[in-house]
Every structure is written in C-alpha cells, then in structure tokens.
C-alpha cells in the first residue's frame, strides 16, 4: 500500500529553487470576437494549491482548460511540469476533475475509478503510490466498489471522480468547480475530504471555484479574477497552517481571509 493521508506531510519547496509546476505567461483566449480571457500570468509551485476565484463567466474555467491542453491559447505560453499542455496530457501529468462527475453509467464504481488508468495505458504508472482500492476506502466507498453510478448520491459520485483523478498518480490536479452541483453540507464535507487527500500526497492543485469558503480552506494562494475578459486582479496568500482541519472554518483567521477575498471580488466587479 502506498502513502495515505496522515502518513507523511508534504514539504513545500520555494519557487526560486525549482521550476514551477504550472506557468502561464501572458495567456489570453478569444472565441471569435469574444475576449474570454485577457493576458494572464499565473505560477503554481510544486505542492501548492492555487484557486482561481471569480464570478461566473470570468474565464477561470477557460484558463483551466488552456492549462489542461483542452483549448489552445490565442496568445502566450503555458508550461505544465516542464512541458507543453499537449505533452502533459500525453504523459498523464494531469488529473482532471470536471464540473459534473462524468461517470460512465455502464461501469461500476471501481471501473469508473480505473477509467483513466485503462486508457493511454503506456503512460499509466506501473506501480501507483496508492491503489484504486485504497483510495476508494479512503473516501468511504470501500463497500460500493461494485455499485453503479445511479445507485450513488451526488456527493458519492463526485468522490469517485476524485479517486479517478488521484488514481493516475499525476503530479498536477486540475479541478473545475467539482463541487458546484452539491448541496452546502455535502460541499463542505467534500472540501474537507479533498484537503485530507491532497496534503499528504503533496499534489499540486489548480482549483476553480466561486465559493469563497472553499477557496480559503483549500488554497495556499487565491487568484481573484475580474469579470470578462477575465484577468487576475489580486493574488492573495492564505496564511493558514497545514494540515487544515474542519474546525479551522470557525476561526477568526478564516473569517478574516474570507472577508478579504470577498472585498477583492467586489473590487474586481467594480473595475
């Protein structure tokens, strides 16, 4: 069995020593006459969790898709783990978590969790640091391996989506509002679960959300974006200690950061 949450603690490496895991330089995107994203610079270091926070339609998903290599930028350069996004996809360097769980209804929970391992097999890890079975147990789905997606709740389905992304052992996770469709209580549980999964594995995460508590709880830094054409208006460091526990959300420090992010968002809207 590989590393599981609680077994090790990640070591964050200063950005000046090693190259960034993700680096976007003057990246913009237009769809015809529509400017979705103004030139943006973004750097995410090894083991760092950075959140793109902004109002709907501000281009945060577009930026994530550009980094995932699912769209081509209109201008600028993107480097993902030392390579182009296309090569990063080819070498399975990215664990992608879409907005909807995107589970295949004909596959069981375990089959879905293994989906990304089963395609482009040459790039799959020969010995993943954590097995699919262990990950399913970790997210509380150990007894549901043979269940089908329609037998699961929305939160359980999204947990399968998380396991599927973690299973390929990618050094980078790109998450596009994965908890947006969940009710508030499940959503809170899910961000706590995600924090628990990411911290010990030292995964680099780029997270998209418009939930301020989610951004605060999960992130080391929050890039606040303005409405379309999206640009990063503020880069807020979240100075909360690791590991982060659910109780953190009741602290004054947490409240202070959420207030700070809310005013940052408001300032972006007023520009």
């Amino acid at each position: 069995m590989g590393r599981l949450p609680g077994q090790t603690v990640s070591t964050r490496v200063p950005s000046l020593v090693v190259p960034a895991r993700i680096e976007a330089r003057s990246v913009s995107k237009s769809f015809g006459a529509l400017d979705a994203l103004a030139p943006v610079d973004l750097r995410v270091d090894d083991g760092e969790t950075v959140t793109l926070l902004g109002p709907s339609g501000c281009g945060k998903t577009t930026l994530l898709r550009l980094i995932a290599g699912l769209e081509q930028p209109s201008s600028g350069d993107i480097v993902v783990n030392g390579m182009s996004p296309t090569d990063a996809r080819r070498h399975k360097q990215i664990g992608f978590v879409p907005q909807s769980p995107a589970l295949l209804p004909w596959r069981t929970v375990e089959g879905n969790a293994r989906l990304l391992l089963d395609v482009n097999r040459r790039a799959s890890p020969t010995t993943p640091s954590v097995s699919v079975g262990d990950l399913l147990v970790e997210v509380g789905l150990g007894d549901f391996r043979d269940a089908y997606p329609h037998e699961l709740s929305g939160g359980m389905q999204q947990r399968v989506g998380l396991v599927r992304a973690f299973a390929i052992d990618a050094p980078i996770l790109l998450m596009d509002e994965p908890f947006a469709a969940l009710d508030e209580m499940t959503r809170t549980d899910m961000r706590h679960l995600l924090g628990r999964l990411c911290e010990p594995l030292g995964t680099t995460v780029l997270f998209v959300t418009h939930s301020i508590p989610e951004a605060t709880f999960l992130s080391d830094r929050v890039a606040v974006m303005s409405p379309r054409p999206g640009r990063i208006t503020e880069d807020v460091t979240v100075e909360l200690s690791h590991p982060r526990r659910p109780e953190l959300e009741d602290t004054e420090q947490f409240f202070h950061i959420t207030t700070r992010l809310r005013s940052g968002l408001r300032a972006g809207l007023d520009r």
Partner: protein
Amino acid sequence: MKPGAQRIVAPLVGLIAFGVFWEAAVRILDIRRFVLLAPTAILAELADAPDYYWSNAVVTGWHVVVGLSISLLLAVVVGSLMASSRFVEEATQPVLVLVLVTPWVAYITSVVLWLGGGEPTVLFMVAFTSFPVFTFGVVGGMKSADPAARELLASVDARPWEVFWRLRLPSALPSIFTTARFAMGLGLAAAYFSEGSAFVTEGLGYIGQRAAAFNNAEALWATIVSSALLGVGGLVVITVLERLLLRWHSSQRS
C-alpha cells in the same frame, strides 16, 4: 392481480379477444378467403404442415439476422465517422435520407438484375433498407456521449479508438436497440418481398408468393402469420439482449 402475472395475462387476453373478433368478423360478414382468412383456418393450415412452415421461417429468419447484422456493422462504421466529423455527417445525411424514403419495392427489379437474384439479393435488400435507420441511431447515440466524459478522456490523451470503444459505442447502445426494433420490421418486410421476387426457392416470401400465384389463400395467410410470429420472436430477442446489455440504463430500471 400481481404485476408480474398481469404482464403475461393482459397481452394474452388482448390477443385472444382480437382472435375472437377476427374469427367472428370473417364468419358473420362472410369475408372472401383472400381478403381475410379466419384464424382457425390459418391455424389448421399451420398444424397441417408445421415442418414446411418452420423450415421456411428459419430461412427467412436467417436472411433477416444476416442482413441486419451486415447493416448494423456498416452503420457502426459509417455512424462513427459521421459522429466524429460534422462535414462527413452533413455530406452523408442527404444520401441516407434518400435511401430511407425511396420505396425499395420500386427498385428491387434493378437489384435482382444487378446481383442476379438469389440469396445475395435478399441479404442486400434487408441490409440496404435497414441501413439508414441503424445509422441514424448510431449517430444520435454516439453524439449523446457525455461531453464531460469526452473531455476527461482527452485530458489523458485517449486514442480515438479508446474513445470509441469505452465511451461512444456504449453511449450509442440504447438508441441502437431502439432503432433495431424498427429495423426488424423493415428487414422482415424486405426479406419476405425479396424472397418472392429474387428467384430463391426457400423462405416464407417465396412460398407466400407461390401461394398467391396458385390461389392458395390458406398457404398465403399461413406465411403472413408465420412472418408475424418471426417478427415477434425477433423483438423478444432484442428485448432480452437489451435487458442483458443495458442493465445500467434508466430505461431498464423500474
């Protein structure tokens, strides 16, 4: 009545009532034999030569199964190309519509002349008439594949054949099964008519056509009922396969 028993009893009651009405109508209205034969007379004819009708039904069934299989195989190939390229889809659609709407009975003589009659003509007609229906089913099903799942597979650079095998084809199965029911009706009609026109010497269509030529209403109606039973058998097979292969689909859940 329990729901399980009702599912068997209700259709039986319906069929028996239909048979009684049919028999009564023929007797009371004194309908001519060729226009409508009484069910008891048809059953007597089938009971008189069961092997004869069974062996010919097997031949027609074989023509339908082989013809539909060829059609489905080609539809999956063409449908996949159409689903993955808007240009191919737009270029192919009008041709398929033409094939679909043109009455095949009008050009079957040309097909007989082209292929020289016999089994190849029957198989061609079954496959050709059902091909557009299957193809539209495949295209619709493949295009319904979850876009988020497509993107997910793209995020790890899945090869096109992997996307086809793991996502597009399973997504198309529900609509393939739906269209298979229509294709079954089309294929059976094409097989029956072609067997009667393509110089074959076996099959329900052949003996039906011969019965019509020799004024044998009993044999003609026996082939009609045998064809209907063949169609019902085909639909049962499709339904069972659907139950087995689509257990995950909402249509198969109570």
